[in-house]
């Protein structure tokens, strides 16, 4: 089995994996980072979104070996100690979740949006979230949370 090495949430990790191991399997099963979720298997739901070298990616549609040498960050790596990332805080304060299953992917996707568009409009947010499904909220509070989070990230 090949060895894969990467940095996950700032820590170097290295493991032997089968090439067919998906990044999401590696994160969840090898590293125990179960905040990254699997909802659909076909790349639509976005519950598995992580950042690879700072860009959002669906970890169910990537092999772990493709992340060789990359900087991967997951929902678990966002907070600074007990201080939440501004986007996490925005979701918490704006009630941007009901069941919370889609939340990690939403937050990771939203941060990538703000990195590319620091002052997104409601329209921008809605278009950006095409790869993240939520079935609970009708997206209303998610959109509100992301707009607030974007402001806070500039803050």
């Amino acid at each position, binding site marked *: 089995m090949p060895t894969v090495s990467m940095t996950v949430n700032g820590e170097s990790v290295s493991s032997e994996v089968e090439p067919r191991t998906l990044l999401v399997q590696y994160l969840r099963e090898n590293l125990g980072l179960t905040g990254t979720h699997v909802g659909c298997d076909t790349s639509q739901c976005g519950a598995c979104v992580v950042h690879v070298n700072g860009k959002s990616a*669906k970890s169910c*549609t990537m092999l772990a070996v*493709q992340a060789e040498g990359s900087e991967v960050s997951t929902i678990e790596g966002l907070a600074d100690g007990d201080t939440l990332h501004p986007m996490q805080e925005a979701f918490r304060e704006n009630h941007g979740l009901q069941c919370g299953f889609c939340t990690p992917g939403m937050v990771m996707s939203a941060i990538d949006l703000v990195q590319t568009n620091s002052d997104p409009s409601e329209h921008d947010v809605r278009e950006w979230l095409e*790869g993240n499904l939520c079935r609970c909220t009708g997206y209303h509070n998610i959109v509100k949370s992301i707009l607030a989070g974007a402001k806070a990230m500039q803050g």
Partner: protein
Amino acid sequence: MYDFKYQLANSQDDAVSAQSSAEDGSFLAGGMTLIPTLKQRLAQPSDLVDLSGISDLIGVSAEGDSVTIGSMTTHAEVASSEIVSSKIPALAALAGNIGDPQVRNRGTIGGSIANNDPAADYPAACVALNATIITNNRKIPADNFFTGLFETALEDGELITAVTFPIPDKAAYAKFPNPASRYAIVGVMVAHTGGETRAAVTGASDSGVFRSSEIENALGDNLDSSAAKAVSISADGLNNDIHASSEYRAHLVSIMASRAATAAG
């Protein structure tokens, strides 16, 4: 997923030799179609040769009246490229609407056209803009490149290195995305380049992207949107699936062509 061997290629030569020495090797670009295909066990390559480490396959350049995009350039990079946005804004817009942001962050132009999914967006751009697909061996005009459903003129071991797009006078792309997958149910790219009008249709046909002469004739040199809208496209040979009948797709072809023409101005 079936098991396979994985290799990261460092150069084009490396990639080609790894692929050709494998029993049934596949190149892995962004993986946005290949990995779902492998997950569904719809393919069983013996080896995957990852192209992401080959830096000379990435990037955008303009020379004379054309823009060249390296095959491993992601959709997001094309969408945000200043060169593409200023020279061929329609292409930047097309790239910026492929799939979702995560697909655009990893999916590549080379991967997309090599796969020739009948519902992919880039093939329409290549054909409408009369692009040239450059491989490690040769240059293939887009008209000869897309040969059928998931089929291209690429030979075994042939690697797309770049795509060159002539800069059009006017161009635009309009698509009707599938409400679930966000793939094009029908997408039409119209372009007017050096006196020639082209309209390339994706999503509609079983055999992949095609040029519609009826639409092109209606559009004329001025990209007449209302004439395009009035064209009645035959449903024969068009896709008929759970999302849209062939008749509905036929109707979409004229509407999307008309909208693209309006957007092209």
